[in-house]
């Protein structure tokens, strides 16, 4: 399904698609444009759509296709507590269709999963011990609240939104400001509709002065390295810029990718792709984009660099959305699919509503978006997909408004999506609250261990938890946390120890670790945010190659690194205690007897070497790399 394009200008592009194996490096100061990007929206729109089509659903069915001997009698559904509306709906459906299901996760499964999902870090051995030993009946709920309150929650989820909104370093200084702003919003659980308003409405002489304006001010849509002069036709087509903005906004906040209809009517193109969009016209898209019709985005021409600076002036003093205007600055999209002359008045694509007289169009757009049920649906879909590994609609911007319900409904569970969207709306659009609701449900807390023969038909029932491969940042942060050898990224004069403390993937930097961290993160499908995010959640040979060989791992498990291994080896702890420590901090469990035997033998040969080797082996285990 189409994913909106961000790109209009050449800049470094690294596309990560499919089951990838590659040792890649992307750093900030690459030679200019190592590979050209789609230099206009046409390219980008088709690239997004095609890339998504290539990725989408590729592994959805591969998630859970194991042949597992039955572990014992299946847990009866009535034994699993119904915590909230999610469980009511999910279990009713499972019972009705007699779908086999997993039991509740064990404490060790749950604690590790929760930590990774909520804060993107593994629990320490002490935290695991404490949680397992806690006799309180409500310990899971308390842990959920504890983790939601941590700073790292904001980091983990701000990073995710950074991926969604493609905040790369192309946004210039605005990227950092935006990142911090977004983290603050998450930390206080500010209603998401207010965030949307703040993102869409501001004006500024220099866009970086208002953090939320980074979306509108993302200057990658203006900047070109091949600009010859201020009259160069490649600098900007204002309407192309606002079109790209409209596409972004619809994509993330409404879950609808309008990039296709930004160039042509849906008819004769999208019938096999999206029924709703097949009926939409380019005029309807223009009308949607016309909410930005008065928005001026003026880049500052820099005589010295002979280019347009990243700073943008944003105001609402333009004349309106008129296809006859803004020539002769043409982009290829404009030249291939020129806009017909004539102006368009704003109208919200989903309802046709026009802005009220005298009201500011951008504020009206924010109002209309957040008032529409699709806003809640799209957001609920994002949250659910993030936590459950399989969203109601995949990818997140592929909603077909004609298939929200009924026989050919698109969502994996129509009823649950509506209920969750309703919950999100009722609680005032608070992300954390809805996340909590999901986390508290037994559905979320089901085990990934499925007794019996799994069938892909069961996927929409969510009758087990779907294990997912860790994301790039999670892997890096987990490795550095577990080994006790922190990262040291320099950002804004400060040293950051976690990837998720950074604002963009490009902040990894060019230092020695930067290159290797980049490569490892990319192998786990971290996108560079200049292109649509790839579907992660897949293992690959490259990951194996890098985890075994990369200095990120190998240099951290040594005694010489002065981290956890050194501490354990030098301490008075027995071999068994060391083994327990390593298992608890990586797998959130103690070793099985057979594992303990192997580990004991390893440590008995040489305590230091054995500890190094054991930790290395644990970090290279699927159980470590997979969040179950």
């Amino acid at each position: 399904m189409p994913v909106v394009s961000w790109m209009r200008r050449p800049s470094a592009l690294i596309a990560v698609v499919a089951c990838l194996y590659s040792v890649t490096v992307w750093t900030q100061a690459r030679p200019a444009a190592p590979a050209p990007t789609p230099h206009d929206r046409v390219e980008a729109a088709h690239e997004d759509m095609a890339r998504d089509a290539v990725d989408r659903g590729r592994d959805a069915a591969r998630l859970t296709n194991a042949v597992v001997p039955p572990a014992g009698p299946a847990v009866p559904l009535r034994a699993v507590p119904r915590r909230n509306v999610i469980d009511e709906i999910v279990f009713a459906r499972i019972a009705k269709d007699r779908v086999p299901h997993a039991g509740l996760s064990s404490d060790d499964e749950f604690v590790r999963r929760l930590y990774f999902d909520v804060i993107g870090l593994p629990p320490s051995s002490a935290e695991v011990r404490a949680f397992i030993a806690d006799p309180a009946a409500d310990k899971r709920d308390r842990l959920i609240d504890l983790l939601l309150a941590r700073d790292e929650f904001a980091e983990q989820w701000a990073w995710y939104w950074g991926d969604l909104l493609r905040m790369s370093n192309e946004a210039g200084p605005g990227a950092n400001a935006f990142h911090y702003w977004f983290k603050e919003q998450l930390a206080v659980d500010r209603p998401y509709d207010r965030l949307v308003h703040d993102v869409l409405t501001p004006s500024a002489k220099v866009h970086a002065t208002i953090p939320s304006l980074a979306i509108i001010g993302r200057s990658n849509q203006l900047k070109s390295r091949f600009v010859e002069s201020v009259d160069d036709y490649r600098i900007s087509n204002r309407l192309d810029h606002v079109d790209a903005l409209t596409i972004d906004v619809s994509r993330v906040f409404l879950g609808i990718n309008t990039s296709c209809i930004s160039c042509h009517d849906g008819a004769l193109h999208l019938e096999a792709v999206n029924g709703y969009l097949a009926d939409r016209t380019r005029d309807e898209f223009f009308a949607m984009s016309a909410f930005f019709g008065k928005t001026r985005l003026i880049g500052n021409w820099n005589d010295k660099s002979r280019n347009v600076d990243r700073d943008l002036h944003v105001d609402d003093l333009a004349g309106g959305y008129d296809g006859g205007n803004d020539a002769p600055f043409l982009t290829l999209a404009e030249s291939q699919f020129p806009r017909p002359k004539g102006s368009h008045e704003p109208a919200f694509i989903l309802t046709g509503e026009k802005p009220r007289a005298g009201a500011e169009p951008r504020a009206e757009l924010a109002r209309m978006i957040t008032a529409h049920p699709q806003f809640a649906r799209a957001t609920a879909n994002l949250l659910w997909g993030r936590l459950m590994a399989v969203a109601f609609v995949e990818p997140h911007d592929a909603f077909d408004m004609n298939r929200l319900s009924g026989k050919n409904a698109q969502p994996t569970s129509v009823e649950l999506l509506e209920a969750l969207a309703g919950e999100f709306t009722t609680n005032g659009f608070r992300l954390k609250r809805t996340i909590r609701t999901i986390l508290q449900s037994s559905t979320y807390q089901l085990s990934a261990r499925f007794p019996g023969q799994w069938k892909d038909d069961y996927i929409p029932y969510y009758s087990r938890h779907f294990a997912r491969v860790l994301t790039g940042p999670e892997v890096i942060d987990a490795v550095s946390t577990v080994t006790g050898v922190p990262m040291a990224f320099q950002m804004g004069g400060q040293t950051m120890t976690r990837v998720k403390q950074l604002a963009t993937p490009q902040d990894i930097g060019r230092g020695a670790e930067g290159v290797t961290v980049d490569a490892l993160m990319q192998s786990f499908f971290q996108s560079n945010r200049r292109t649509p995010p790839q579907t992660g959640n897949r293992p690959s040979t490259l990951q194996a190659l890098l985890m075994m060989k990369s200095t990120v791992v190998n240099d951290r498990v040594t005694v010489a690194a002065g981290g956890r291994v050194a501490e354990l080896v030098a301490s008075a702890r027995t071999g068994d205690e060391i083994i327990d420590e390593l298992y608890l901090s990586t797998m959130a469990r103690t070793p099985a007897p057979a594992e303990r035997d192997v580990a004991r033998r390893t440590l008995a040969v040489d305590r230091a070497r054995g500890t190094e080797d054991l930790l290395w082996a644990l970090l290279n285990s699927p159980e470590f790399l997979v969040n179950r």
Partner: protein
Amino acid sequence: MDRRLNDIIPSRRDALRWGGLALASTWVDGLVWPLQISAQGKSTPRGTARNCIFIELGGAISPMDTWDFKETRWTPQDLDVTEVSKGLYLSQTLFPQLAKNMSRVALVRSLQAPELIHFNGQYHTQVGRSLNPAIAREIPAFGSVVAFELAKQRRERDTFPTYISTNLTKARAGSIGAGFLPTWTTGLDLDPSTVFAAFGGDMSGANQVLSERWRLLTELARINEGQRAAMGQKAADYQTFYDDAYKLLTDARWPQVFTASADDKQRYGDDEFGLGCILARNLLGQNAGTRMIYVYDGDRWDHHSGIFDKQAEWNHYRTCQRLDKALVSLLDDLAAMPGQAPGKTMLDETLIVAQSEFGRTPGMNPVAGRDHYKGAYTGLYAGGGVAGGRVLGKTDADGSTCLDTGWRHKSQPFMDNTVATIYSALGIDWKKSVDNTPSGRAYHYVDTVNLGGSAMMESDEIGDLFA
């Protein structure tokens, strides 16, 4: 674990009836089930090559400034164009070495493309058919099909993946995977700018430690097999990938691939493309299982402006000269390496193809560049049985219209036919189709209907390329 697939495989139901067994996840994984192949035996593959190197000239090379030369009022004076053979003109400035070697290569000047957009075009090039978003998720790269087909020829000692690509993550379409084919057919993509450091050099010390740790890892993995399986296919898949990775890392031939002498770099060029060609040569030279190599040259050909502007960082002079040295060095080096069969060279046994996703406009645009054009473009072929010096197809005075399709059909060939040619050369029956794809839509190795095009396509190889 036996990774050889043949057409006689128990049905999935049978396989599962063996029930409870953690079947070798190499061939029972994810979406894969025994493939129902049909329409076999309708083509006669010529089997003149063992290997294939496909060089994607990303961004679309301009035919009328290179291999289908047309002199126009915009042609710079310094191109030094000569007639290297009858009707074949080439700029000595742009291709100093190739101009002397045109008798070793063949050209097809009548290619056509259905796409005008890089992503779609580069997808088409990598996959051998037009993008169909509805089923794209299951469509494999043609390199994966080659890996699948040649799997039965793999020897015990082969540790390298059959299909390796270079620089593809930088491609517009990225690296397309295996689609519905088994995961192990996915190409291993190497980034030339980092792999030499990462995998080259003396690995013996590192591998000593690695092998000890690997033993430990394997022991623990064996204990945990059930645990992994219970978590789902992804966790189980990791074992396969780790096994493959370890075999690679400890194979003494692997670091050999990542060595490039100063002379190599000088001859091929020390950039992503030159290094990619060196990797291709080395991979074939190590004879460790790699037989299909896809070299992505880095998308430098998209000259929408200033095609001959010497001030521009990547102008045509630079891109052509870069191609020139790497390509001819590759031809020379492969010709000097022995092949498998007695009396044959590696070049005799390796089909080399250099092709773009589409062509460029015959007329110059207002910024002294050329835009995308699908009516006619040119591909270059060498080795693997190709008759050197042959020029198939002809375009009109400015290169906009094809006058002679160059093969026995009235319609011009597509990239799909290039793929048919590659399959044929490698001995693969290109008229096969797989019926039980996930979508239910039959996957023809070479499509017969061009998606988005108007007419039926010829699903034929370009046989006239061969001696």
